[in-house]
């Protein structure tokens, strides 16, 4: 075998070995769990996985421009005001927001007093946002009252789950 062939094979093998390592690292990179933000409507964008698994805040908090039924005083975002996730905001865009310790919740609560599927917040037909306790152990409180039925959320009213407090804001 000529010296040249062997040298090429030697370097080629190292290159292939490192290529495998790099491909594996790329797979890890694309494999990070995260919240998937899918854009629909006028502009379709490919699903873009986000890195942060916990902070489920979308990169852009675009307000809903259209919508005849959109009321003047409708809240546009949900803000965490107390607890470990303080400062997290989630844009309200007419889909259910789930809260709980389960890692697939929209807002993952890292709180011993929260159940894995603790509560959900969703809009009713009129666009009024409703909070519903999903049979949690320690309960969900709107202001000071423990929720027993799905209840509409007034703007700025604190919803307390364990140590976490969230409210709806314009």
């Amino acid at each position: 075998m000529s010296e040249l062939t062997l040298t090429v094979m030697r370097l080629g093998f190292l290159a292939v070995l490192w290529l495998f390592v790099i491909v594996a690292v790329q797979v890890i990179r694309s494999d990070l769990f995260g919240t998937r933000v899918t854009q629909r409507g006028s502009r379709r964008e490919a699903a873009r996985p986000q890195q942060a698994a916990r902070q489920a805040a979308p990169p852009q908090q675009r307000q809903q421009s259209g919508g005849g039924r959109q009321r003047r005083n409708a809240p546009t975002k949900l803000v965490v005001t107390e607890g470990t996730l303080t400062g997290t905001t989630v844009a309200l865009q007419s889909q259910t927001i789930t809260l709980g310790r389960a890692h697939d919740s929209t807002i993952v609560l890292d709180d011993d007093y929260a159940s894995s599927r603790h509560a959900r917040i969703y809009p009713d037909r009129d666009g009024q946002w409703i909070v519903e306790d999903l049979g949690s152990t320690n309960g969900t409180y709107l202001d000071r009252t423990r929720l027993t039925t799905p209840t509409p959320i007034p703007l700025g009213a604190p919803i307390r789950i364990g140590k976490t407090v969230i409210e709806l804001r314009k």
Partner: protein
Amino acid sequence: MSATNPSTHHTSTIGAIGAPSRRNTELALLVFAVAIPVFAYANVGLAINGQVPTGLMGYGIGLGLLAAVGHLVVRKLAPYADPLLLPLATLLNGLGLVFIWRLDQSERLQQLAERQYGVFSPSAPNQLMYSAAGIALFVAVLFVLKDHRILQRYTYISMVAALVLLLLPLVPGLGANVFGAKIWISVGGFSIQPGEFAKIILAVFFSGYLMVKRDALALASRRFMGLYLPRGRDLGPIITIWAVSLLILIFENDLGTSLLFFGMFVIMLYVATERTSWIVIGLLMSAAGAVGVASFASHVQARVDAWLDPFACYDTSNACQQIGQSIMSFGSGGVLGTGLGQGNSDLIGFAANSDFIFATVGEELGLAGVMAFLLLYALIIERGVRTALAARDPFGKLFAVGLSGAFALQIFVVAGGVMGLIPLTGMTMPFLAAGGSSVIANWALIGILIRISDTARRPAPTPASNPDAEMTQVVRP
């Protein structure tokens, strides 16, 4: 998701984590992982004999079949498992086979074997058989172990089983003394290293035990000089494990096994309690134990001498000569290596294809190759720890950390020993080195990690939408 708003302008869905199963990624990586060893095999043949080896087709098909079986079983039984574990293990196993076959071609080693045993038998076919057995055990693990939490029930049974396995080599008539270390047993012509299997079983015991006791071990402590010191009575478990690992060191003369078990326990204790003090205590205890034993056990003493200065006793001691040859192989490899099949790592002689196989990597692939191999191992460990992070149950978390920790320690102990960083111990590089027990046990370990990662990454079922709740009229105050 109830879309009540008719407006479709810029509606973005913040969906739950839709973890895809990623089986096709795994398949693509597997094809790559089979192609690389086939290339290496052809390369070795061209370098040694000047022609493509005749067994190339058979070897490629064999490795491909093993990988295909593994992949299909994962696709069927653990569809959400981590996509990297199986390809990484396959690649390491395949390259290990190539290196063993390459050392089989060495005339020096053939003559050495003929002088010592009267007959030379190649190791590569045996290793291929062991790899097949390993894949079979991998498949069996995935079939039998539908949920890793079942193992939690066998916490104390696994403690007894692991102790029995660890003590088996000491049973007269069963244990085999191979060059000083008594970590093998021979059953019907086969020699088995029970310690390799004991590491998995011990991980079951440690995680089951620590899951129950971790609050007591973590919370009851006093603060002293920035460290949380545990209460005296909470030191019981760590002292017991320490004593057992010292007993292994003294009676089985094996530093590696004892370091592996004690280290694994300390890692799991740290992960379970989040107290740095356990690591400090563990390091102090293992240092004290190692120094104490090394000062009066002659077998350990010889290895320490070989580690401190292999060239001082190069001509007199076989252990020193092996380490010296190994260090010289790494040195002569340089940055890019001499090329597959063109090194002289067979000068190491005895155990060149088992304990010292990493020296062949160092010489023929150089620093670049050694780093790539260490990264491949590091990726397996990273995926194991990642699995532990993603796992939802504490038992699974501890179990995955324990298994990856044991894997990491084993690589550190072997690679460190061969490179002269720590005294050499009789352990094998997982998947790479010749040796049935190691390959089979490590495939079982990968199988368990795949099972845990499948459970961890499986998307949770969406909460059943209650039709009554949707229909219920909301009464406004």
